[in-house]
């Protein structure tokens, strides 16, 4: 069941209850009307009392007549009796009507008229009959007064009854009207609530669906009520979700990339290790099959085997070095080193490979007594790597190493510059990562494992230096610059 259906149902329940409440209320009203009817009976009693009072007066008159006619003293007594009763009734009536001053006024007037009449006739009751024609005051004036009283009372009776019943009916109608109004207002509020809840909720639902479909930039409009707050946190959530997902995606991409590099590295390393091994096994076979024509030739084979073994060892060492650096186990002892002998050794080693490619190799230092703070073996390794790269990636031209002091920073700068194939700008930042090569394909012209630059960078940093690489682009040659702290001569 949808929320707005529930709300609607709830409101309807309330309306039904309100309407049902009308049933007892209505019975109460009926009872009230009944009560009014009963109370009006009292007024009717008052009415009857008016009649009775008047009857007493009439009886008194007839007593008078009989007395005058017969002279019977019993009539005298009877007259006094009626008079007493009249008095009592009159007082009772006054008591009954005392709430209504208007009625009291009329009653008093009637009373007064009656009393006057009684005072006039009383002496006649006691006087002896002398046979004369006696003038008897007429009761008619008094009766007019009583007539007035009766009329007034009956008017008052109907008016009061009608007024009360009308009032009760009016209030019952008002209640019904108010009930209807409550129903209308309730329905209207219900409609408002549903409207202000339904649309934002629907928008939230569809945005959630969109997010679960992977559209993380879905947002919902924000209103200024509680649903607005919900929408706001929803938008914040979808933003966070988007960022998280992007971050995860980026990490996944990096992991995949690292994995591809590792696979390439494995293939390359296998290739690189197999090449010197091939030489070793080949020449060993020549010796075993006694294919050397003289001892000198055999000695040459053996020295080739030795060289290749050394090359193989250095490859294995490179791989080990990288893993040592990665696990943080590489510690270097740094000493002040005089550069010149070290550079001479490097020159000695690289002269041959350079000359084989007809490259001009220059190693230059701006002063003969430059000292650096470094590990000699590792510095040589770095220079072999960088100059080896320069020679490897330069088909024609020259390779030049220059060492000069940087007095302001108290360092020695090394620059290796070649006229080779250069490095595309977009690859320059990546090459210091291990295994990364501009051309990692299997059929590429130039071998290597892709460890040289990564290893050199780590070694230089371990020796307190820094390294950077630049090239104007493909075909424009490359330049690698690194610096190390100056050595302190002690």
């Amino acid at each position, binding site marked *: 069941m949808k929320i707005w259906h529930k709300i609607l149902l709830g409101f309807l329940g309330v309306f039904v209850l309100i309407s049902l409440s009308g049933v007892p209320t209505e019975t109460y009203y009926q009872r009230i009307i009944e009560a009014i009817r009963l109370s009006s009976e009292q007024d009717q009693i008052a009415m009857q009392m008016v009649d009775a009072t008047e009857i007493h007066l009439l009886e008194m008159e007839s007593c008078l007549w009989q007395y005058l006619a017969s002279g019977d003293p019993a009539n005298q007594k009877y007259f006094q009796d009626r008079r007493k009763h009249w008095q009592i009734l009159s007082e009772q009536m006054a008591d009954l009507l005392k709430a209504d001053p208007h009625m009291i006024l009329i009653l008093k007037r009637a009373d007064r008229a009656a009393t006057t009449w009684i005072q006039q006739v009383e002496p006649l009751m006691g006087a002896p009959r002398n046979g004369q024609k006696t003038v008897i005051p007429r009761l008619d004036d008094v009766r007019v007064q009583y007539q007035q009283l009766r009329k007034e009372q009956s008017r008052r009776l109907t008016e009061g009854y009608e007024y009360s019943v009308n009032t009760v009916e009016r209030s019952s109608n008002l209640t019904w009207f108010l009930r209807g109004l409550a129903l209308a207002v309730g329905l209207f509020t219900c409609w408002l609530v549903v409207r202000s809840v339904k649309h934002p909720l629907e928008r939230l639902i569809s945005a959630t669906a969109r997010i679960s479909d992977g559209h993380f930039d879905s947002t919902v409009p924000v209103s200024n009520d509680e649903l607005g707050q919900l929408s706001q946190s929803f938008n914040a959530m979808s933003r966070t979700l988007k960022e998280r997902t992007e971050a995860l995606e980026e990490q996944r991409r990096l992991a995949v990339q690292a994995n591809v590099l590792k696979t390439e590295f494995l293939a390359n390393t*296998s*290739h690189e290790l*197999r*090449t010197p091994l*091939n030489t070793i096994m080949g020449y060993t076979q*020549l010796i075993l099959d006694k*294919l050397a024509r003289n001892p000198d030739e055999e000695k040459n*084979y053996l020295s080739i085997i030795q060289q290749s073994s050394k090359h193989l060892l250095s490859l294995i060492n490179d791989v080990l070095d990288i893993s040592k650096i990665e696990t943080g186990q590489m510690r270097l002892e740094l000493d002040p080193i005089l550069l010149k002998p070290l550079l001479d050794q490097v020159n000695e080693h690289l002269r041959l490979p350079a000359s084989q490619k007809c490259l001009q190799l220059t190693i230059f230092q701006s002063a003969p007594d430059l000292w650096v703070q470094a590990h000699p073996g590792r510095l040589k390794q770095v220079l072999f790597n960088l100059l080896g790269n320069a020679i490897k990636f330069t088909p024609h031209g020259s390779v030049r190493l220059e060492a000069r002091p940087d007095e302001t920073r108290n360092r020695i700068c090394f620059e290796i510059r070649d006229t080779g194939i250069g490095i595309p700008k977009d690859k320059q930042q990546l090459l210091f990562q291990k295994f990364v090569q501009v051309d990692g394909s*299997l*059929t590429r012209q130039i071998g290597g494992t892709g460890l040289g630059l990564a290893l050199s960078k780590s070694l230089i940093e371990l020796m307190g230096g820094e390294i950077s690489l630049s090239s104007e682009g493909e075909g424009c040659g490359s330049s690698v610059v690194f610096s190390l702290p100056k050595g302190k001569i002690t």
Partner: protein
Amino acid sequence: MILIVEDNEENAAFLKIFVERKGGWPCAICTQGDRIVELCQSGAVRLVIMDIQLHNTFFKGNAVSGVALARHLKTDPSTAGIPILLATAHALKDEQTHFLAESLADGYITKPIEDLHDLLGEIQRLVPAR
């Protein structure tokens, strides 16, 4: 004559010595693309042992790999009859099948060559009788 295309000088040298002295096949070493094609066209070459990774080997001014060079020889009618043995240190099986298909070569040897005598047998098998 057997043509050895291999840019690692030491490796090329021991191959030549072994095949010449043990197998009795005269050998030549060459890494210049244009020269290789010329030699093959001359009819003197009876088999080519071709390395895949060639540094500084150019053909018509462009750097080429052994795979491309082999393919060229195999698609040129004047040289298509010459059997080609690919030699490389790439050892993964699917790499090898890929290279074989790409280069149209006749056989494949993996470096390091475990037993050079097997290589002689392979040459014997591939070289067409005259």
